[in-house]
Every structure is written in C-alpha cells, then in structure tokens.
C-alpha cells in the first residue's frame, strides 16, 4: 500500500496525519472523493482537509449543501457508481440527520444485493468531548453504529494509527465509520508512510503490565496510559490494550491479555449503559471466566445528556475514575 515515493517518517498531529492520509489515498486512487460541509476552502472546521481542494480540485473535494442525509445518501449513490467517497460529518451530534441513510441503506445494501454491489463509503466523525464546546459537539455515539450489522467502526488513538487506519478504511469495500478523537487532534506522534501497518481491526497492547488490563480506544487510550503510569508509582503494573476497532472488536487480543493479568477494566467516554465495554465484559467473561480474579469493571459516561462544558471535566472519565475502578478490581 505504501507508495514507492512515500515521504519520510515525521512527527504529525493527529489532524495532520488524517490530512496526509486523505492526500495519499486520493493520490493512490482517483476514485477517492472527499465530501462534507466546509471541507473545501475552509479545510474543515478542524482543518483536517486543509489544502486538499486546492490540490485536488472542487470535483474531488466537495463542499456540500448543509444536509447530512443528503451527504450520506449521495455518497452511497456515488459509491454505487464506483467512487469511494470519504464523508466528513462536522461534529458527532450532527450525524443524526444521516442516521436513516446509514442504518437502513448504507449498512444493508451489500447484503440486500446478495453481494452484487459494494458501498465503500467512509464516514469520518470528529467525536467525544474535552474541548469545552457547546451542546452536540462532544458526544460519543459509536455504539449506535457498532450495533448495526453491515457497518465497521474504528477509532484511532494516535497519529500513526490515524494515518494508516484511515487509508485502510478507504481501501475497505465495506462502509466504515471512522471516529476521530477530536480533543487529541493536536497530539503529535510519529507517522511513517513507508511502514507496513497491521490489520485494521486488530487491537494493540500499547503498554505491557501484569496486574490488570485496561481496554480502551480513541481519546481514552491516553487517559489509560496516564493511569498506568500513576499506578506504576504505587507498585501496580497495568497493561493497556488499545482496541482501535469497535466493530469488529478483537476479543482475542484482549483475551490473551486478561489470561495474563486476570483482571479487566474497560474505559470509554460513551455512557456505560449498553456501551461497548458491556460487550467486552460479557465476551471476556464467557471466554476466560476461570482466569478472572474480579468481575470486569466498566468506566465511562453516565446515563445523562452530555453536560455543559463547565461540567465536562467531572462528567468525563479521567485518571481518578479509572484508578478508582482499578483499585476496586485489585481489591477482589
């Protein structure tokens, strides 16, 4: 996949890594299009598509009317015509006008056509909180999509994954919802466009440990790494698994980790109730019940609307909430 003239490895913020990923994908395949609100001249409200319209033209980097159902619906049509649209939804809370198209059409079309058509649409959604925004700009709706068969859902936590996972999502023949942790957009990490990436849906152990496994994805991976560092000082060795993919979930990697550490805490910003952590807990309990020394604990958001910005620090699971769960799990 890496182009022969791939640029050298560089430290890039996540937003820029995604930009480079889009650029490389468009260079590699003329069928790749970018569509969304304000993605052209403005380069998107987070500047993720900065400069793309200038370099690839208005035919390939398309400022759309302000209508999400229209954006996704027409992206489906273009995919049926052989294009590979990469759609940007401006913020998590604005995907819902398109939810019908995504759930009733995009997700099911391949199956309904008995496999005769493919709809390789990627929907990029800057998601989750932590930027002090107004309502509808901080939500974590990933399970509303992961629950739907026919959709794949992924969320990178760092620049290298952002770059490679998006390239892989665009190459994937299935619809992929690509959740971008917006509060990490400015975090820098090394991106090597000549590297050979692992599979898109494979989880990664990002820190090894022995006493307990933290499983997270997207914005919460950083929090878990910080929690692991804090626990280390208290003599507790935590392993951190970056799930990277929420549909499918790589349970094998989590299982291997848990068979070693014997304790598992799942962490996400989305509400705990019926969240992806519940699925991980249930599967892992089935898979390695006799290895577990403690029930799988879940850390996440509350069953309440995302609060106004001045309460988000309390609402969001941070270091303390993760460590509190770690303590409880270790106490069993």
């Amino acid at each position: 996949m890496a182009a022969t003239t791939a640029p050298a490895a560089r430290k890039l913020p996540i937003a820029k890594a995604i930009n480079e990923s889009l650029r490389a994908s468009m260079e590699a395949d003329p069928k790749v299009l970018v569509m969304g609100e304000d993605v052209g001249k403005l380069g998107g409200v987070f500047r993720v598509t900065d400069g793309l319209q200038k370099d690839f033209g208005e035919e390939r980097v398309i400022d759309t009317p302000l209508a999400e159902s229209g954006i996704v619906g027409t992206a489906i049509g273009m995919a049926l015509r052989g294009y590979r649209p990469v759609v940007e939804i401006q913020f998590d809370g604005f995907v819902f006008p398109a939810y019908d198209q995504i759930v009733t059409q995009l997700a099911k079309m391949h199956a309904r056509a008995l496999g005769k058509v493919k709809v390789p649409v990627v929907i990029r959604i800057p998601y989750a909180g932590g930027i002090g925004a107004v309502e509808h700009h901080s939500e974590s709706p990933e399970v509303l999509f992961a629950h739907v068969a026919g959709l794949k859902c992924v969320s990178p936590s760092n620049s290298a994954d952002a770059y490679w996972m998006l390239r892989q999502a665009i190459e994937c023949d299935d619809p992929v919802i690509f959740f971008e942790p917006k509060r990490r957009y400015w975090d820098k990490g090394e991106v090597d466009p000549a590297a050979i990436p692992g599979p898109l849906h494979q989880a990664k152990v990002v820190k090894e440990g022995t006493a307990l496994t933290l499983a997270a994805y997207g914005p919460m991976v950083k929090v878990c790494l910080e929690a692991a560092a804090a626990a280390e000082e208290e003599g507790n060795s935590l392993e951190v698994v970056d799930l990277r993919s929420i549909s499918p979930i790589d349970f094998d990697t989590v299982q291997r980790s848990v068979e070693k550490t014997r304790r598992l805490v799942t962490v996400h910003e989305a509400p705990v109730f019926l969240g992806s952590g519940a699925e991980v807990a249930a599967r892992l309990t089935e898979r390695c019940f006799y290895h577990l020394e403690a029930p799988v604990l879940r850390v996440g958001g509350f069953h309440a609307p995302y609060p106004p910005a001045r309460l988000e620090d309390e609402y969001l699971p941070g270091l303390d909430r993760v460590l509190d769960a770690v303590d409880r799990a270790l106490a069993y």
Partner: protein
Amino acid sequence: MTVESTAAREEARRSGTGGKRAAASGEPSTSRSASPGGGKGRAAQGASNKQGAAKKKPAAKKAPAKSRKPAKASAAQPGGDEFVQLLTPEGERVHHPSYDVDLTDEELRGLYRDMVLTCRFDAEATSLQRQGELGLWASLLGQEAAQIGSGRALRTDDYVFPTYREHGVAWCRDVDPTLLLGMFRGVNNGGWDPNTNNFHLYTIVIGSQVLHATGYAMGVAKDGADSAVVAYFGDGASSQGDVAEAFTFASVYNAPVVFFCQNNQWAISEPTDRQTRVPIYRRADGFGFPGVRVDGNDVLACLAVTKAAVERARTGEGPMLIEAFTYRMGAHTTSDDPTRYRTDEEHASWEAKDPIARLRGYLEREGRADEAYFAAIEEESEAMGKHVREAIRTMPDPDTMAIFENVYADGHALVDEERAQFARYLSSFADAPAAGSTQGGH
C-alpha cells in the same frame, strides 16, 4: 416554576389576547378579520380556510417566472433587487405597493434603540469570549434589522423558535440578555424557561426547530387561538430535510407559522450558491404558500413584511416564507476565521448597507430624533455593557450533580443509581489529604 403560573400564562397565551391585531396601513387586507379576541376563530374557520386561502391571492408579491439561472450564477444577487424595501441604505423612505408601516416617531426611535442595544450586547459578548468568559459566541452583527424588525412584529402570545443567533429577537421577546450567555459560557444547555416569553431555547442542530415551530403552530390552530408562530433559520438550514418537511407539513395543515429565513449569504464558509440555485423565497411556491424577499438590513421592511405574514397566520391563511436578505458581518462564531473564504470587498459592500446607520440617517434627516436622544441611547448602551460584564462574572458555575438533573420528567432507576454512586465516589475524596490533585484519593 409553579404549575399555577404555567397554567395562567398558558391561558393568556392561548386566548390570543396578548395584543391588538396589527392594522398597519397598506398591509394586504384579509378576509378573516372577524373573530375578535381570537377565541375559537380558527377552529370554526377550519374547513373554509383552506378554500379561502386557495382562492386568495397570496399577499406576497409574486416573483416573475424566470428561467433557471445557469449553473454558475452568483448567489450574491439571485433574483436581482426584487426585495421589499422601505428605507434605502442612504436612509431615504421609499414605498412599496404591498407592504408598508406607519410608525410614530416614538416607535421609530424604539426600533433604533432596540438595534443599538442588541448590537451593543452582541459586541460585549464577543469581547467576553475574547477574555475567556465565554467559550464561544455567535454574533448577530449585521442582522439587527432582520431580527428587530421581525421580532417587533409579534404579540406576546406569539411563539418564536430561534436558531442560536437570534439575540435581537430574544431582546424583543423580553428575554433577559444575560440568560443567553449561559450556554455560550458552558454553564447550561439552554438556561431559560421557553414559556416565560414564548421564546424557545436556542437550537444548534441546523433546521430541527423549523419542524417544532410548525408542530407548535398546528397545536395553536387546533386550540382555535389566533397566535402566530415564527421559525427562524438560516440560508444553510434551507438545505436540511427537516426544513423541507416543515414546509410540507405547514402547507398541508395550513399551519399559522411564519418561516423567517435570514439569508446572511454564508453558512460558515459556504456561500448561498452551495445551498440553492433559486432565491430561497421562491421555494415557497412549490409548497403552495407565498414567499417574499425583504431587504434584511431595512428594519421597517422587515417589520412590515413580518406583520403581514403573522396577520395571515392569525386569520387562518396559513404559512408564509420570508427571506431576509442580509449579511453576516462577523465571523460565523468566535471560533471561525472568515479571511480564509471571503473577501474584504464583499464585507465593505455590505458595510455600506448598515441597518443601524440607515435608520439613524432617516431619523436625523426627518428630525424625528435629536442629538440628546442619540446621546441618551449611547449612555443606555454603556450601562447595558456594564451590566452584562457584571452579570457574567457573577454567573455561578453549575453544581456537579446537575449532570443528573432533569434527565427524565418521571425519574429513572439507572439515573438514581448512577447519581448515588457518583456522590459516594466524590465524597471519597473529601477527607483524602491529596484531594484536588490529579491523583487525589490514591
């Protein structure tokens, strides 16, 4: 808020006695001006309304049928200059065959005061954002006339569904301006009781409120009240399915709703030609109700046209679309950088059409307000700025446990459980020596 007070207010609102029927000269007369006091008027008119409305010539001046613009048509002036104007940019009073207002000097000065104070409040909010007191602000700069003109056309029993930029309309509805700051400061997601001033909460998801306004209007009609409902939305919003569906429902049910679109030429970085190839007001045609474009920087024209539209709504003639042709003089919000997508020349051309300057020019030329008056307004606006600055600095942060408040009207076991758990968790920090540090409690 008590149940009683709600009930009392509801009674006042429903009975439609909130104000006198507007009778501005030159407005298109309507066939259903009978039904004093509102009462059961609309219900009784029910079936015949539709016929009446169908037979009636729309109040709005019909746009001449024109062939579609070629694909590259500029949206800056679609439809040319066919808009309702009563006050030129130079402050000259002109007349229109279908729409007019006849205002006393005091009323004219009132509109001026409304615009100046709204503008001052807005500027104050922008600077509070710069100082870090607000997380974000969406300025109405340039849209004062569209908002004050339309807002002052309403009675107290009318109901408004705003976007997030209708600070001027809020002012007309007597909403305490400092309440508007709460959601931009991040202390709440709304912050006022919509039923106190018949001004619904700001809505951020583009277009949603236009359906709510339509449904509310359908309810007004069912009640037989003669209130009108106004849905505000932008040029960008006109692309949303919700808005098209609102037009359909309003038309099919002949709902007493006025669709007030402020075409400020931009939806963040996208010019109006990304949303439409025909002038927005002409969309009404296809839905079967009148649409009219008004000079959105002319407060008198906005007042006159909105008055005519709400009068239609009150008298059972159904919806109307108003496109107020205006300009967003500021950035989309304080997070936006318009230099990336629009020119200084465009901005300057709209500066010459300033809504406040033109009314002031008219008042001065006609001798309807003197220097002392303008000085007094200036003083009042200084005081308003001071008040807003003080209010923001004393605005309390919400209590942490507010996260769990009002999630449900009838309660929910899981919310109760999580609230209790979280309270226990928080109290575990209370006696820990390191409480407050990032690792408090550990």
